[in-house]
């Protein structure tokens, strides 16, 4: 019988484009101290430390080793994860499973990235099978340009819908002092003047590369109840991936139709999670959804993949304001990935932000309702989805 696991502490840095004042160790140390303080415990109480980072982007591998003094990992067991965009979620899953096993009681889970020190596109393209992929793969930007074009053609969505969604993200980010991009965007017209990267994808449609760190304290049921007056229970974790299976690339076509259209990993995960928890109407039964969306076009299309609506209707939810901070199902009250993206931390930040919402501690970007159930997703690789279900009660 596995242990129940709760989040009992959260900490993050103020995410920025550049942090020349800290190296990676110092950056992580800021988030760790904040999380320990939030949990009101000390490093002595921590059994194990789990660290996550996309090493390739800064060209510093085994970065968890170099920083074990500052991360709190010194002389403690733990693990490291490097799984693309899902990095922060993968390490969260590892942490949860260690506590659930009954072998560990109180853990620190850390995700971080110091993007300004390296080059993401270079890292992304070097991460693929270079023996096949040609030079103009164009990385995440190319993928989301394809998704944007394909989605508009199939659903009737227009660039204005992406602009409206980008405005939502910015409105929410302005309420989140930790977010990197807080732009005070004023209108759809302004967003539509953002330059194209690869048409039809604009600069504002894509996430930034942030330097930042996040840390979460996990505890088993007994310990959690002693540490925290408001433990946030991890009700479930689900993941599926097809990675860069050539089948998934071609059949999903990044938005293109094909003879055999595979269901996305998002949909496979959502069906499983919802079925296991009696969620038949996510819009009514989930209180907050922190979605991992590297592009605003991803968010729009993935309203469908996560079963908020029928295929082809995601843009209608945008028009209706369904996912606004005070809407029927708030999506990314934190401002989301388009506002803040330290890749090694980003998927963990979705969990952290969802946890703050459940606790009622998200300050100005707290959704105006009683939050009992929240979902946080991760996406990466290509086609690697993670979903976490958080609950205010056991």
């Amino acid at each position, binding site marked *: 019988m596995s242990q129940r696991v709760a989040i009992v502490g959260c900490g993050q840095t103020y995410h920025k484009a550049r942090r*020349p*004042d800290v190296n990676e160790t110092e950056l992580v140390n800021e988030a760790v101290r904040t999380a320990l303080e939030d949990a009101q415990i000390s490093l002595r109480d921590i059994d194990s430390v789990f660290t996550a980072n996309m090493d390739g982007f800064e*060209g510093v591998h085994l970065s968890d080793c170099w920083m074990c003094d500052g991360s709190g990992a010194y002389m403690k067991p733990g693990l490291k994860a490097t799984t693309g965009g899902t990095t922060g979620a993968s390490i969260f899953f590892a942490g949860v499973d260690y506590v659930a096993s009954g072998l560990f009681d109180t853990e620190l889970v850390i995700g971080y990235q110091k993007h300004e020190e390296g*080059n993401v*596109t*270079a890292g992304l*393209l*070097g991460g693929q*099978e*270079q*023996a*096949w*992929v*040609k*030079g*103009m*793969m*164009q*990385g995440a*930007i*190319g993928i989301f*340009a*394809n998704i944007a*074009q*394909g989605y508009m*053609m199939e659903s009737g969505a227009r660039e204005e819908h992406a602009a409206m969604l980008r405005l939502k993200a910015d409105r929410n980010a302005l309420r989140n002092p930790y977010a990197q991009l807080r732009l005070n965007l004023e209108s759809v017209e302004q967003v539509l003047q953002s*330059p*194209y*990267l*690869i*048409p*039809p*994808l604009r600069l504002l449609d894509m996430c930034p590369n942030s330097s930042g760190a996040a840390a979460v304290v996990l505890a088993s049921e007994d310990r959690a109840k002693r540490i925290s007056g408001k433990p946030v229970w991890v009700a479930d974790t689900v993941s599926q991936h*097809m990675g860069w*299976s*050539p*089948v998934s*690339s*071609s*059949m999903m*076509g*990044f*938005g*293109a*139709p*094909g*003879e*055999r259209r595979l269901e996305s990993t998002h949909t496979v995960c959502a069906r499983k999670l919802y079925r296991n928890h009696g969620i038949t109407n996510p819009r009514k039964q989930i209180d907050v959804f922190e979605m991992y969306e590297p592009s605003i076009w991803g968010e729009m299309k993935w309203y469908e993949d996560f079963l908020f609506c029928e295929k082809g209707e995601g843009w209608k939810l945008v028009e209706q304001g369904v996912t606004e901070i005070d809407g029927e199902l708030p999506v990314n009250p934190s401002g989301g990935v388009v506002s803040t993206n330290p890749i090694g931390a980003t998927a963990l930040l979705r969990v952290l932000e969802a946890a703050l919402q459940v606790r009622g501690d998200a300050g100005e970007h707290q959704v105006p309702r009683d939050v009992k159930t929240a979902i946080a997703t991760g996406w990466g690789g290509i086609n690697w989805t993670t979903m976490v279900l958080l609950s205010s009660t056991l």
Partner: protein
Amino acid sequence: MAEKQGPEYIVLPTLGRIDYNWTAGRVWSIAKKAMRDEKKLITTQCPSCKTIYLPPQPVCGECYVFMGDNWIELAQTGTLLNFTGPTAIPLFDPAFGKHMVDEYAHGSIELDGGGVVTMHRIGEVDPNELKVGMRVEAVWKNDGRVGRLEDLMYFRPIRE
């Protein structure tokens, strides 16, 4: 009044040239030789679920069946499924080590008879002309083919 000096933080640039040699392996070498020597696209098909993979793979992910000996030749013509415009601002391309603009549109093509080429260059066309469903054909380099996807320079609209 003198400006207050903030602390000085030292940033160390590091330039390294790293040479990699990635092995194509058994299955990809077969396909690459066909590209280099015969201007052909050949690939593996799962004998169980009949899925046509591109690029070819030794094992079908879904069926976990070995398909490294199950080769088919793909057509040189197909239909445009999706497309994006040329890069509008220079983006970093690690294959060349610098920021570059790619003046070609890119698109995904479903080849006649099966097989999808994703995000390949579309040439000899005004990007504004591109439409889903357009019929296109492969245009190969006449010389200098080495067994990379760039040997297939681009797809172009079939103009009757």
